[in-house]
């Protein structure tokens, strides 16, 4: 796999590779940014910081991990820097005062897909940072091994955090059976 990545990197120049990575991961990066920042303007700043960081880091990519892991590492590192930046200014990146709308108990009163998405996003942003990072990567479809490679923790550690994040999310959102 690594040989393939290196070969692809040699054949593809920096700009072409960058455009491809942006194209492949833009939606995921924007969703990930929404777990670090609720304010739309600041979130856009964070996303742009991530694109710039990706461009700067690309020449150093040697294929020792998958491209997806590489992109998510950069994005999460920028996310942590973003929190650090706003805490320095005594402003939290995420506003805990915003309540999570609860799911309607009646199945007939089901929420729209958009509302469910918003509800889930809010619940995710309420999780402690260590759980939030892990669950966002799970929701993006990364394996436990890949999540461990992004965050620098063991697969067992990932599994424990996922379990805790799920308990917390279920508590916030209610059992999923109520909404289906």
């Amino acid at each position, binding site marked *: 796999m690594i040989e393939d990545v290196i070969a692809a990197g040699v054949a593809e120049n920096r700009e072409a590779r960058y455009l491809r990575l942006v194209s492949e991961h833009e939606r995921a990066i924007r969703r990930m940014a929404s777990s670090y920042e609720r304010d739309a303007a600041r979130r856009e700043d964070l996303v742009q910081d991530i694109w710039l960081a990706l461009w700067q880091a690309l020449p150093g990519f040697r294929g020792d991990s998958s491209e997806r892991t590489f992109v998510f590492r950069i994005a*999460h590192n920028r996310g942590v820097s973003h929190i650090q930046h706003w805490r320095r200014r005594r402003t939290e990146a995420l506003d805990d005062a915003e309540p999570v709308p609860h799911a309607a108990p009646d199945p007939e009163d089901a929420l729209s897909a958009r509302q469910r998405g918003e509800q889930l996003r809010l619940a995710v942003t309420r999780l402690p940072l260590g759980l939030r990072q892990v669950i966002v990567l799970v929701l993006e479809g990364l394996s436990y091994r890949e999540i461990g490679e992004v965050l620098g923790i063991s697969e067992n550690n990932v599994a424990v955090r996922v379990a805790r994040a799920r308990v917390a999310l279920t508590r916030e959102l209610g059992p999923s059976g109520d909404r289906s």
Partner: protein
Amino acid sequence: MTSAPDRELQQWLDVWQTASEPQTGPEAIRDYVARRSLMLSLWFGTEIVIGAVALVLLLHRALTGTDPVETLAMGALAAIAGGSLLFSLWNWSKGLRASSGTTADFVALSIDRVRRMRRAIRFGWGILVCEVVVFVPWIWRQLYAGPQPPSADAERFAWGLLLGLTTFALMLLVGLQRWIDRESLILEGLHQEMGAEV
């Protein structure tokens, strides 16, 4: 994914991944990044050129001047300009280097960087004390060792300069110390938040 993802997690995953986020598109992002990179490079280049020109001029004045007090003043200003230039180079090289290591490594490195800066500040306090210990007797000798008493202007300039530079360095060190203390608290907090759940 996990070998047997259950229904709840799968539902969340579906909801999460279908969330509609406005997209910019790769071409627009590429243009933005090119503009930002150019702006950063121009800013960095301007800062370095201004710092280097100031350093050369001050050093020239310090080395060619005949008045020892002026030589001392220009030398001290050149040292400050040189220090600022080095700090600027370090700061920019850090800012332009994006971390692609794991998030845990990234935070650990940031904490280590803060520790190094703390050590540098302790070193700075030492330099400041040395500066005062060396310059007070030296200025004293320059002013009062001759047969004639110094003029009031020369006295005011020499002591005022030393006091000014010392106060500036003192405020800089105290400011940096406070900034690093805050930075350290924030990073330790983030480190705990990221690892305390297990």
